[in-house]
């Protein structure tokens, strides 16, 4: 990420964080990685880490300038219990955005959120 002073306060339109596109990427990563997998304490830990890194790498590959990314992944055992996840962000509505996707099968559920924050 070049740190030169470009004085750009907004990204160009074609290089803006696009939630729908990122949502598809996240969904694809979740589906590829977790289909037919069962919840197991050690493996789940590994999956969360690998998923977070994979999604982050895919976002970097999109080559959007001056964006910082935060990816959060939650994987839990599927036992029919209640879970709720939410977030609030204090940022610039015009340049920053987020996308999320969920996946579940009989033995586990997974949620991944990706936030893109523009660096002025």
């Amino acid at each position: 990420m070049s740190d030169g002073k470009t004085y750009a306060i907004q990204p160009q339109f074609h290089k803006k964080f696009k939630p729908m596109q990122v949502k598809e990427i996240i969904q694809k990563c979740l589906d590829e990685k977790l289909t037919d997998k069962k919840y197991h304490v050690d493996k789940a830990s590994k999956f969360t880490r690998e998923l977070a890194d994979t999604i982050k790498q895919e976002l970097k590959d999109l080559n959007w300038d001056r964006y910082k990314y935060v990816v959060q992944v939650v994987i839990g055992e599927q036992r029919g219990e209640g879970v709720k996840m939410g977030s609030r962000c204090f940022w610039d509505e015009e340049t920053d955005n987020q996308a999320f996707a969920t996946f579940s099968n009989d033995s586990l559920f997974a949620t991944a959120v990706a936030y893109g924050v523009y660096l002025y």
Partner: protein
Amino acid sequence: MDFNDETVFEKEVVLNILKEVTEETLHDQTYNQGKVGQWISDICERSNKKLVALGKPFKYIVSCVIMQKNGAGMHTCSSCFWDNANDGSASYKSPQDWPLNVVTTCFALAI
């Protein structure tokens, strides 16, 4: 970019804020499907307000997961692409003896 001492991410201060807000909202509560949405909104919004009141040049993302205690396991992980010198995160996990599992995380990104 010119940075001075004010733009350093202070993990202990942020952790304290998350801890206070989570404990105020959820002490002695058991899982209630109807109220859980409201709890999450409250925790996130109040944490945000207190973080912004610190007056530092940061953008904040506060996220909260609340889970019923039924013996199931849960893992959370985050991966960030940012400037390590100025950005940071803090995460507060509820104590074992609570009837709920709560994880509140805050990401602060420098402007």
